């Protein structure tokens, strides 16, 4: 085990994949530039050569279709977008080709393509550099969607994604890149489709993903100090979804709160609430709840984003309301030491 940042863990996964399988290629805007996509692709071209690790023209749609073709030929391409919002230019290739190919040709050939998309937030990323569209991708049959929250999972899930025979959308949050965590050495994979319980408790089930898991950890530990033991499930995979773990937890707790980094309407959180309502109606002792981003784009001005994202204190408030138990969340809010629009003091803009 090593302590690595989330970004270094991704770099480690790419390095391992490129080492153990000559079919792996890694490309995308800025892949070999001095910043190396926030450090995630740093050093890879020097080690594996410009044939396998390369920059590309500003042509997201074509470069995705080219990834599909390369995958059909037998390569295992990993395409990276510095923002998910840029990948929207490639929806046609993702949805009509990558996701459909195996199905529409009667299972003749798979598309082992991994597409990394980085999601921004804060520091004026604004309406077109901050979208969390996991629900869109999860809505498309034929795609797998993963959303790691920890450095260890980032590495393990990326390796699984690359060696999965299907197109996988790998959603990584910019705010997680500098977070450190335990990362297993070598080719250690985290299976797709399996959630992970990060805290155990019987009072309520909290389901989260990506940065919401980090936010939930603060809330759950604060709740524990106030005598409320929550079950915290980090989804890790959005599709396939680990229904078994969520349903079993709700069976025990009788309460479900789902957190989402995307907009409320049509969210993954909504899908989970619906699925649990169908599967475990009789287990529920209270109406399930969702906490997600409002149904508005993220504005640029810091004055307009103060209450936009779900915060730990809101999670505490929601749990308190669902348990009908007064808990003052103000001390938790007061612990935050850096401005609301940056992940930490280390971030001074611009991107």
């Amino acid at each position, binding site marked *: 085990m090593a302590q690595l940042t989330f970004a270094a863990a991704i770099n480690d996964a790419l390095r391992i994949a490129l080492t153990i399988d000559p079919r792996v290629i890694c490309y995308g805007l800025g892949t070999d530039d001095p910043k190396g996509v926030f450090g995630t692709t740093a050093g890879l071209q020097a080690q594996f050569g410009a044939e396998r690790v390369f920059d590309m023209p500003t042509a997201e749609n074509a470069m995705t279709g080219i990834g599909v073709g390369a995958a059909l030929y037998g390569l295992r391409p990993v395409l990276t977008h510095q923002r998910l919002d840029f990948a929207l230019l490639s929806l046609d290739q993702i949805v009509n080709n990558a996701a459909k190919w195996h199905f529409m040709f009667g299972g003749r050939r798979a598309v082992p393509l991994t597409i990394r998309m980085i999601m921004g937030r804060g520091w004026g990323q*604004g309406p077109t550099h901050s979208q969390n569209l996991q629900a869109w991708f999860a809505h498309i049959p034929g795609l797998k969607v993963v959303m790691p929250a920890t450095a260890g999972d980032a590495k393990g899930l990326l390796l699984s994604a690359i060696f999965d025979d299907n197109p996988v959308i790998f959603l990584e949050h910019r705010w997680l890149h500098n977070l450190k965590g335990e990362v297993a050495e070598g080719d250690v994979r985290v299976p797709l489709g399996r959630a992970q319980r990060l805290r155990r408790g019987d009072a309520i089930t909290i389901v989260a993903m990506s940065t919401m898991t980090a936010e939930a950890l603060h809330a759950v530990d604060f709740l524990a100090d106030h005598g409320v033991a929550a079950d915290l499930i980090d989804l890790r995979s959005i599709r396939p979804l680990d229904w078994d773990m969520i349903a079993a937890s709700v069976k025990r707790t009788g309460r479900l709160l789902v957190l989402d980094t995307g907009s409320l309407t049509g969210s993954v959180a909504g899908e989970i609430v619906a699925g649990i309502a169908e599967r475990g109606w009789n287990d529920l002792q209270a109406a399930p709840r969702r906490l997600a981003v409002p149904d508005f784009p993220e*504005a*640029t*001005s810091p*004055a*307009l984003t103060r209450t936009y994202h779900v915060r730990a204190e809101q999670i505490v408030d929601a749990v308190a309301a669902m348990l009908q138990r007064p808990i003052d969340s103000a001390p938790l809010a007061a612990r935050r030491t850096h401005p609301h629009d940056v992940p930490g003091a280390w971030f001074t803009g611009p*991107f």
Partner: protein
Amino acid sequence: MSARPDAGVSRDLLYHLKRIRRVELEIARRYPEGAMRCPVHLSVGQEAVAAAVAVTLRREDLAVSGHRAHAHYLGKGGDLTAMIAEIYGKATGCSGGKGGSMHLIDEAAGFMGSTAIVGGTIPVGVGLALGMKQTGTDQISCIFLGDGAIEAGVFYESLNFAVLKRLPVLFVCENNLYSVYTPLAKRQPAGRCIADVAAAIGARTASGDGNDVEQVWSLMTDAVAALRAGSGPWFLELATYRWLEHCGPFYDNDIGYRSEAEFRAWQARDPVACHQARLIERGVIDAAMVARLDADIDGEVAQAFAAAEAAPFPEPGAAFTDLYAGP
């Protein structure tokens, strides 16, 4: 080709060059204070193209741009204070604080919007021109784009349609050799002239020195005259160079994607200094006039920043407005 601009126009060009430079440098100087909390893509070194637009297009002509749009907005006549306020995230900003540096608008000046997705406004500019054609005005739609944007499929689709319909579109391509940290050589075949690509699709084209504001003015003046006479789309490729980092306030020649020597060679062809020296040599201006011009611009820029800083932030509730038009 149009002769060089008369003394009045060449002085106006100097004013716009200096004003854009001053604004961009002031943003760079103050950015580390941490009060402009959004990505900024500055145009220091690339002022000549926008300055030429300032004296070539009419107010009722329309323009759209991309992520690096401060100069274009100012060149098209956009309100300076509203732009600075927008970058500061203030209620008085041109987009009410919702858009920031990458989403500028001043409809009164014909600046219809700049957006952050590369190539995103190219078809929008063509659509504006479609409207012009259908209403029979003699307006022009100006689309600012970079050398990176011509790699996007939407550029080809849009240009094809503009040519097909003979729309009054002026494509103004600032070729600054880079897309972020990626040089042209890694993105397009060696020896390509971007204007030739546009010509092959059927646009009328011209290429020139994007750091020589009089040359840009001359090419643009001819293109605009032809456009108003119904020529159909024009594509201007103007060679220039960004001095500061791709995004942010600092110099970044040290990080390894371009050489200090290359930067210095371009800096020696500073569009502002070269034009100023030329006008002094011609006797069109003198040192005292330059000093007055600088002082005026300093005053205007200082006032805009002071107003932006003093302006209120939007009410928190404003985050949840403007989603739809109408009730």
